């Protein structure tokens, strides 16, 4: 952690960056995002198990973009989010300095995007193991069981869109749910509207989800909506052998194709 603080100070003092995006301890002891612009305040930076939020979500916000050059504390999911954001032209790689954090919470030397790519390539890019277990359980259910399980979950949804706001990949300035010509998604938080909202969100993240699980963590009513996108991330690997967020030049799975893509259901 000291390495992180001294590196942050160094970057701010040398004016290499204008802001360091990281975590600090909030009043209740929970980690919260910190935007350090003054090297004197860099001591507030923490890095431990509490720091789970995917900070990449801030990179597409206008307020943050205005900082220009910035450094960001990044564990694997954040790095993969950054790769996606660069490849989708939302973030300029040259403006970013990655303060990479390894699995065992030590500071990585990530000098460039290609070094980051090398690091990502060596990591396990599957879903987190605890989610993998839940997915396996769900996949064992009959269609009817799955339907009622999810309907039960969706019945809690209040359509606050926290799942969307927390996701680094949901950076659109206008979401489909805000389109009313035509009204694609029923506005109300009801069974129909909730179901279609979650289908829509998952489909829009197909091939783009980097399995950080932030959407599920952000949900105030505890819908494990991250399982939907993670299931698709698994399937993207099964069908197309692609993990999202592994290169700054990748095309998303749904905007590319291979002529010999395999499926078994089209007659």
């Amino acid at each position: 952690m000291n390495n992180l603080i001294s590196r942050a100070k160094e970057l701010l003092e040398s004016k290499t960056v204008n802001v360091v995006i990281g975590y600090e301890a909030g009043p209740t002891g929970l980690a919260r995002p910190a935007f350090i612009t003054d090297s004197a305040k860099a001591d507030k930076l923490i890095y431990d198990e509490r720091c789970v939020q995917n900070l990449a979500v801030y990179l597409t916000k206008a307020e943050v973009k205005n900082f220009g050059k910035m450094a960001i504390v990044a564990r694997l999911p954040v790095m993969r989010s950054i790769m996606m954001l660069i490849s989708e032209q939302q973030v300029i790689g040259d403006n970013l300095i990655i303060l990479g954090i390894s699995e065992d919470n030590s500071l990585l030397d990530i000098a460039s995007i290609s070094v980051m790519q090398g690091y990502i390539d060596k990591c396990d890019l599957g879903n987190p193991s605890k989610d993998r277990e839940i997915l396996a359980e769900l996949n064992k259910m009959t269609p009817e069981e799955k339907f009622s399980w999810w309907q039960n979950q969706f019945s809690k949804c209040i359509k606050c869109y926290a799942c969307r706001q927390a996701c680094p990949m949901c950076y659109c300035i206008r979401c489909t749910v805000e389109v009313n010509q035509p009204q694609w998604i029923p506005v109300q938080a009801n069974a129909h509207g909730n179901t279609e909202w979650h289908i829509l969100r998952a489909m829009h993240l197909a091939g783009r989800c980097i399995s950080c699980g932030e959407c599920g963590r952000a949900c105030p009513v505890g819908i494990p909506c991250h399982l939907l996108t993670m299931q698709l991330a698994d399937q993207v690997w099964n069908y197309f052998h692609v993990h999202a967020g592994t290169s700054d030049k990748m095309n998303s799975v749904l905007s590319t194709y291979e002529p010999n893509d395999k499926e078994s259901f089209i007659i």
Partner: protein
Amino acid sequence: MSDFEPKVVAFVCNWCTYAGADLTGTSRLKYASNVKIIRFPCTGRIDFMLLLKAFANGADGIIVSGCHPNDCHYTSGNFHAKRRWIMFKELMDFMGIDMNRVTFSWVSAAEGAKWAEVVNETVTRIREMGPYVSYKELVNKTIEEEVKNE
């Protein structure tokens, strides 16, 4: 339920399946009248949300059909559609939404007979499955709630 007649919507591309269905007509082959066709330029144009809209508006079954791989009028629209349907189907399966109600097919402009088969096979299958109650319930529940709230 024996007199149940399913409502089936077909989303087809203009260049292959729509033309194939024209050929079915020109050949005077008969098929079930439950199916009604909506024309798109290409399967690549077919938004997955439209399938949900069809179910929400009372469809019991859906056919999605376009050009065979490599035959797309626009070269690659059907390949993109294929990937989209792979993902969509996996998601629906995971959420317990019954994809046996959707037939995906490639029907070329020369396959008038295949179009009749695809339609008849789909209608027979959906007829056996019965009306799509569970999706309709989602929508009806909504309407009931609204009425209650008012």
